[in-house]
């Protein structure tokens, strides 16, 4: 078996019950230790469904989804939470909670229901907060955080799980330039220094090209391209998938996309 291989999809296909067409068709994807993979694609192209397949939340109709070589749906949520930390796109915030307690939720899968938090749990929380530059936020209420601070706390919660892989679903959707860049830099640093695997769903084609080792471009549930940013992010492919004219310029050895003006007729 491939040692560094963590998440793997092999020709996986999935259709939601009652849907007219597949949400994901025949997609393969391998994610290994120490690499960052970006999932790109228009709204509704199947990015989030692909993650749900990879994480065993839904069962592929055809093909296979495996985690460390075992079928993804066979993993208990508890086992998986010790391996993969997820920063979901959305979550509810109907109850007040302090930042430290929110990050401590990341320890759930490592605690028995009856025991209290151990020193190791507190240490993991402190470390995760420090890794996300959120130590100063520890005693704040979640509701008082800015968008950028909130994302840092959610990343810290995922890191408190002490995972081998991180999955982030549109982590910078509402962040300004500085916070967006800082988040990508932080994820990249975790991949390089801690050898974590990272899967990032994003709409930021240019940031995916700059930070990811590989990109998977989805359109209507199909993998339109997979490989290095230079291989996948060509003008023809992007124009076809996003249906908008663009120019591609190299920068730092990576392709960068510039959308062109096209007045609506």
């Amino acid at each position, binding site marked *: 078996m491939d040692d560094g291989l963590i998440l793997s999809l092999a020709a996986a296909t999935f259709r939601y019950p009652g849907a007219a067409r597949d949400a994901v068709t025949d997609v393969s994807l391998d994610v290994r230790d120490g690499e960052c993979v970006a999932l790109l694609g228009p709204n509704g192209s199947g990015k989030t469904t692909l993650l749900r397949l990879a*994480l065993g*939340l839904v069962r592929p109709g055809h093909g296979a989804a495996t985690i460390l070589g075992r079928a993804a749906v066979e993993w*208990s*949520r*508890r086992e*998986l*939470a*010790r391996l*993969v*930390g*997820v920063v*979901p796109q*959305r*979550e*509810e915030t*109907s*109850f*007040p*909670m*302090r930042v430290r*307690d929110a990050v401590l*939720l*990341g320890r*759930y*899968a490592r*605690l028995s*229901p*009856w025991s*209290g938090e151990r020193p190791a749990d507190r240490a993991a929380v402190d470390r995760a907060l420090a890794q996300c530059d959120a130590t100063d936020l520890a005693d704040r209420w979640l*509701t008082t955080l800015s968008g950028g601070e909130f994302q840092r706390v959610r990343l810290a*919660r995922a890191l408190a*799980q002490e995972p081998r892989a991180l999955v982030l679903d549109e982590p910078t959707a509402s962040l300004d330039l500085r916070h967006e860049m800082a988040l990508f830099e932080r994820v990249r640093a975790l991949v390089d220094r801690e050898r974590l695997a990272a899967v990032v769903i994003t709409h930021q084609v240019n940031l995916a090209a700059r930070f990811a080792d590989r990109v998977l471009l989805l359109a209507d549930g199909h993998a339109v391209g997979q490989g290095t940013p230079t291989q996948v992010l060509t003008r023809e492919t992007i124009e076809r998938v996003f249906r908008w004219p663009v120019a591609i310029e190299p920068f730092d050895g990576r392709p960068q996309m510039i959308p062109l003006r096209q007045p609506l007729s």
Partner: protein
Amino acid sequence: MKWLALAGLALAALALAVVLGPAHVPLTELFTSPIVRDLRVPRALLAFLVGGALATAGASLQALVRNPLADPYLLGLSGGAGLGAVAAIALHAVGPWALPLAAFAGALGAMGLVYRLGLVGGAELDPRVLILAGVAVGAFAAAVTTALVSLSDASELRNAFLWLWGGLSGASWDTVRVMAIYAPLPLAVLYGAARSLDLLALGDEPARHLGADVARVKRRVYVAASLLTAAAVAVSGVIGFVGLIVPHVMRTLWGHRHRTLLPASFLGGGALLALADTLARTAVAPRELPVGIVTALVGVPVFTLLLRRWTTA
């Protein structure tokens, strides 16, 4: 420090409930008086157990349906229990346990129905469907209850209405014993699910990502909280606001961590109901107010304050 204050409050509430009452018992005779031994002590203990059970169930259900304004009766249990009790009265059922058992059976019936309806979307309880099903089942039970009440004799009516507003006058060492044996199991189940409830507040999928078996947690919490509420309703009728207000106040003091929130709610709910029942017994002595009226008179103003805080926060 906060725990010390809460424990002190609970003890003080119990002490007051034992010392105060319509009949004057001198402090020197406190330990020998049969009124204290056979009436006040079991009644104080029952009030404490029922209040604690309601507040714990309320805190758990609020996390389950992800709505801080939920109370233990939201899911139709009070309607079911009321129907059971009124049916027992209308059928002239006799014996000290006829009414509690009928109420308990009614609550369990409502619980089963709501649970079944909550599963319509698939194998997993959907909180929104649960709330709708609870309201629907409650309304249906209330309609049948009113039909029964309107067809029965006047003297029975008064009994039924008094019961529907809650009261602990049926307290005895036997009811205390039943509650004390029955309640620990569902309470333990809820406490064991405390961390899972923390996660549930984030939403189903985020909770799963953090390691919670969401479908199982929901089933357990729903069943345990409902069984707790059903027993409370059976021995004391419908006592409102304890299960709503107490978790709220505790949450502002301790935050949203159920490992502290649930025990704190139990103590706070117990203290509140013991105090409310003391007031219900003494305020208009020698007559007695239904304790549900006292909790409502105290609870509604507190609730409006909470609503203001919620909407301005």
